[in-house]
């Protein structure tokens, strides 16, 4: 049954159905098969609602809203002008800055989707203007956003820590090394890309120009202050920081810069609502589909037959990586962690793997999975926000996915990438 469901989902997707249909159809076939008819479709509806209900998802529409206000007004441009005054003359500087911004923003917000929106929204038009190809830009934004999973706070690591009984503090620290390594790789790739595609550089800005850019950006610099200071300073939860950004953006654009009137506010709010709905119905449909997979115990069935108990540590790590990678291609990452971690826990213990290393590798796979076709949530967020075709959004992703997979293989053979900082901090 599992293969029939996965197969029909991919066919429906390729034919050109609205993307919610393959997911809903997968769930529907599953419910009918599991319960012998339409009798339990109430629960399918329940699961759709359960998917869109989590409180932490509220950060997504809030960051969409804030980013839209900033982009329509002056805040976003003034901030980017400031960055460009410092890096505009460097080959690939804008791309590297974008990757860095995604990492920083993702780190604090904890949401990859919010990062796609909040950083990608304002920076994509500038990158296109600067001469980068759209597929490269989209792939860079989507994949750099995923570093958010690895850098604390990370909801994926918290869930893993709870399910596997691993120290969450140690996991948080172990994620930093691989996260930064990925950022470095992406930066190098951006530099090479810019070099090979002759992306023009801007003349180096003088210090006077830089000071002028800084002055223009003084008000908008409140945003990083609200997000970074507010969250790490213990004033806001990420969701609240998002709402604070909305109000601050409204204050700047309606009162300080006077770029936005009430009518535009209405249009912006409506547009945010529309994008939110289009993304959230997919999240809900994905949750209903995840339920079928979980209820039918499909992962247990598949993994039961491959003899993981007789593998050595490397075999186990590879199997875990592949299982999570494939799982996250179709199913919500949190659910994948909840289902798969207990299945692997006994064998992880018996071959003596460090659960912190396993957690880091799993978190990385989850990050990769959510940026990977066919059903990565970052992909459909990018499609909804940027209104670009599916094929174009995913076309540029292979080099990034190869780099990410490279890091996961490196982690398996050189665990110190993750564990070095942990051992240092916890004196192990």
């Amino acid at each position, binding site marked *: 049954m599992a293969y029939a469901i996965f197969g029909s989902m991919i066919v429906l997707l390729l034919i050109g159905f609205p993307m919610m249909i393959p997911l809903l159809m997968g769930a529907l076939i599953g419910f009918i098969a599991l*319960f012998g008819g339409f009798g*339990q479709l*109430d*629960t399918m509806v*329940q*699961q759709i609602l*359960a998917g869109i209900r*989590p*409180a*932490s998802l509220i950060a997504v529409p809030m960051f969409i809203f804030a980013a839209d206000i900033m982009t329509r007004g002056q805040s976003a441009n003034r901030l980017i002008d400031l960055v460009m005054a410092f890096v505009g003359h460097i080959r690939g500087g804008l791309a590297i800055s974008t990757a860095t911004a995604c990492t920083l923003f993702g780190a604090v917000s*904890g949401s990859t989707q919010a990062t796609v929106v909040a950083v990608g929204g304002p920076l994509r038009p500038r990158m296109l203007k600067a001469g980068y190809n759209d597929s490269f830009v989209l792939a860079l934004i989507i994949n750099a956003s995923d570093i958010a999973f690895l850098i604390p*706070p990370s*909801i994926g690591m*918290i*869930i893993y*820590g*709870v*399910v596997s*009984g691993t*120290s*969450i*503090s140690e996991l948080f620290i172990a994620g930093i090394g691989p996260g930064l390594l990925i950022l470095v790789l992406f930066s190098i790739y951006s530099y090479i890309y810019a070099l090979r595609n002759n992306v023009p550089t801007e003349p180096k800005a003088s210090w006077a120009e830089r000071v002028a850019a800084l002055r223009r950006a003084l008000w908008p610099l409140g945003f990083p202050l609200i997000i970074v200071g507010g*969250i*790490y*300073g*213990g*004033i*806001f*939860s990420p969701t609240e920081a998002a709402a604070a950004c909305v109000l601050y953006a409204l204050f700047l654009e309606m009162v300080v810069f006077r770029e936005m009137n009430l009518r535009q506010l209405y249009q912006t709010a409506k547009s945010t609502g529309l994008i939110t709905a289009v993304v959230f119905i997919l999240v809900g449909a994905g949750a209903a589909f995840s*339920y079928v997979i*979980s*209820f039918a*115990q499909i992962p247990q069935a598949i993994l039961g037959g491959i003899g993981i108990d007789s593998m050595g540590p490397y075999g186990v790590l590879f199997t875990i990586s592949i299982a999570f990678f494939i799982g996250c291609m179709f199913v919500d990452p*949190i*659910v994948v962690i*909840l*289902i798969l971690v*207990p299945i692997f826990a006994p064998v992880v213990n018996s071959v003596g793997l460090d659960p912190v290393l396993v957690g880091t590798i799993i978190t990385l796979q989850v990050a990769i999975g959510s940026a990977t076709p066919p059903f990565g949530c970052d992909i459909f967020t990018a499609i909804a926000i940027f209104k670009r075709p599916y094929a174009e959004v995913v076309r540029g992703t292979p080099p990034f996915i190869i780099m990410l997979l490279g890091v996961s293989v490196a982690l398996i053979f050189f665990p110190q990438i993750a564990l070095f900082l942990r051992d240092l901090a916890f004196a192990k």
Partner: protein
Amino acid sequence: DTWRYAFEEAMEEVQGKYAQKFKEEVEANSDHEVQLFPFGTLGESADIMEQAQSGILQFVDQSPGFTGALIPEAQVFFVPYLLPADQDQLVSFFRNSKAIHELFPPLYAEQGLELLTMFPEGEVMMTTTEAVASPEDLNEVKFRVMTNPLLVESYKAFGATPTPLPWGEVYGALQTGIIQGQENPAFFIESTKMYEVTDHLTRAGHNNFTTAVMANKEFFDGLSDEDKTVIQNATAAAFDYIIEYQTGLTEESVEKIQAAKPEMTVTTLTEEQRAPFKATAEAVEAKFLEIGGSQAQAILDQMKADLAAAAGG
């Protein structure tokens, strides 16, 4: 047949241990298979409860605090200092309580559920960033509680600022300082690593976390007498097992916490220190009578009678 059983905790936590024993007993004494679904694999607490009501799941474990949204009387378990701190009295109460065995089942039946058993999961403790010895120490402390009106009332009465937060955000919020405290049974504080982001563990003895196992009523009523007996025996065996399992679990969890974080202070409040906390119970009791549904008074009175009996026996 394959019977499905979902619960609110991970496999190796108390509800999971109970479920594993229940599964073992059923499978040993019948041809039925029991599939277990831990926390989150089929949705949150309210979701699995609804699935048990609609018959997708045959068994579900939900704590009365959550069931309070459906059966308001179940919130009685959040009235502070109602349950005894003494373990023997507590066990005797759960074994013999007329409230649990006679008054609650019809209330669950109205919701399409057969109440199989209720059992304690362990003493609820506070973990905070500042030491707590009196209600004054909780002043201005933003304390995370489950969204339940009685818990909110309790912590308001204790002097704290009760702050609702989704469970997934609690660890991060303690780390950054949005909140400064939370409460849970010791095993849960240990397994969810709450001690990593707080510095003081306080035992005020105000409650023992209770949970309930139920079956879908239509399913249960449709079973042969033989199968019903299998389930009842498995329920009883798992109850005995979980009581046994818990002997020392609380102290063990506290020791694990101290081993993992030696600088964590553990304070058991004296009777004298508990007095001002206990004084607040009356206000919460009044709140329970107000929002606890039509049977609130009857349940509370019976509970008190049962508890007096447990203390006497």
